[in-house]
């Protein structure tokens, strides 16, 4: 059964988006960005900015993990198909 392209892209970006959102909520409910980084590294960063950057870092992390999952799902016999070999 062919997998539509939308489904493939979605399978990486969407679950990671959901988990990144959840992680952001939990993380920033416990840690106030002002206590965490603001005074020393980013004195001008607003809380909204810190939340946003935090969210995208989480998304990057979760999306990478989804991407790797998809990458390793590739069947072994497809990896074996090297250039020059007969195509099955």
């Amino acid at each position: 059964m062919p997998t539509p392209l939308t489904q493939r892209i979605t399978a990486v970006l969407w679950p990671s988006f959901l988990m990144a959102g959840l992680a952001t909520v939990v993380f920033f409910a416990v840690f106030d960005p002002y206590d965490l980084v603001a005074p020393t590294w980013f004195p001008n960063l607003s809380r909204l900015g810190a939340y946003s950057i935090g969210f995208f870092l989480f998304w990057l992390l979760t999306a990478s993990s989804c991407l790797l999952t998809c990458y390793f799902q590739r069947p072994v016999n497809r990896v074996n198909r090297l250039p020059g070999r007969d195509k099955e």
Partner: protein
Amino acid sequence: MARPSDETASSDIETQLYAKRQKIYPREVHGLFAWLRTAAVLALLGLFYIVPWLRWDGRQAVLFDLPGRKFYLFGLTIWPQDFIYLSALLIIAAMSLFFFTALAGRLWCGYACPQTVWTEVFLWIERKIEGSRSQQMKRDKAPLNASKFAVKATKHAVWIVFSLWTGFTFVGFFTPILELGAKLLTFSTGPWETFWVLFYGFATYGNAGWLREQVCIYMCPYARFQSAMVDSNTLVISYDTARGEPRGPRRRGLDPSEKGLGHCIDCSICVQVCPTGIDIRDGLQYQCIGCAACIDGCDDVMQKMNYPKGLIRYTTQNALAGGETKILRPRVIIYAAILLVALSAVFYGLLTRDPIGLDVIRDRNALYRETSDGWIENVYTLKILNMEEIPRVFDVDIAGIEDARLVEDEDGVVVGGGEVVSYVVRVQVDPDEMSRQSTDFEFSVKARDDDSRVAVESARFVGPRWMGES
């Protein structure tokens, strides 16, 4: 790894593997369930677009003030300390979903899901501008010309304006919408606000304008596990095969039994109105979002044919098989019970919520200090939170550590209504009196005017290693 020589082979595979999506043109439908959905759309979107403008006590009534780390819900203020309520709320939401799914299938998807609700609005705009289903299909097949371009551009422009307004409203739930609106009029919104308005606007436009049923089919986790909640006593949208088959076209007024036909005239209206493009006559399918458009469509046809309505209807598997439908069954009762317990727990918790909060943070720079008279001193920052709307004066006290001195810079702390105040205090002990290097003790803050407003928090006093060895 790039493998150029493999390129053609893999692109062949690509075309085989990645089926191109066929655009679905759902036909407009009228009837009881279409009316119910329109009502739900108006109510829910009305709430979404109006609620951020409501005022309460001189502030925005519903505001998830992320920068201020406080959530306002009319008279109620939720603090980060109240995180447990958010978890409880999620449990309640999940249980409601389970409960209603067990009772009547995908009610959520058909009537309340934001994806459905916004798609309805986008479809409505599309129909107003592009015309009916057949007009849309004809235009999409025709080559691009000036009028086609004008129609498409108008549609997308209206979609985009509506999406941007949606994005603005969304951000208005998180930053005060009046200020946001004022800033928007002068094009001076902050970078992050602007970003999230565009982000949410783009998500609305993409999901409701372009992706539509693909969101339900590929993105929705609920759709995937719905079968775990549905059983043969659940109301689902079904085609009555026994009554409908064998399907086939016929003249109006003809007795179908004469021709050996069932009630289905095979007009394919049920397929044309389906927003996910399935044929309900093939049985219950994962793609069915339970919108009941096919019921409305089919009932209309049945009426024209003078057949009884309900060839496609809300029914249960048991009823279709000629059995009885049991509504009160263990799973429904269990879901309802958990729902009730969670709801009462939240209400009880909110009603008896401790209105004073206290956090104790030890000074991070120095473990301890020695005072000029040879005593050992620890510095603490107290974060005192007054959740009530009245300002109060609090007195700090310590207990559980013998003969210690509490040194404060002020006499009592003033904490305004709904505010957090950081207050630095020092605790000093005579090292000769101490039996251990570290001692646990308690801080307490008590409102000067009301003894019932107390908060207690434990802390640790740490001295030099030699303390307590002598």
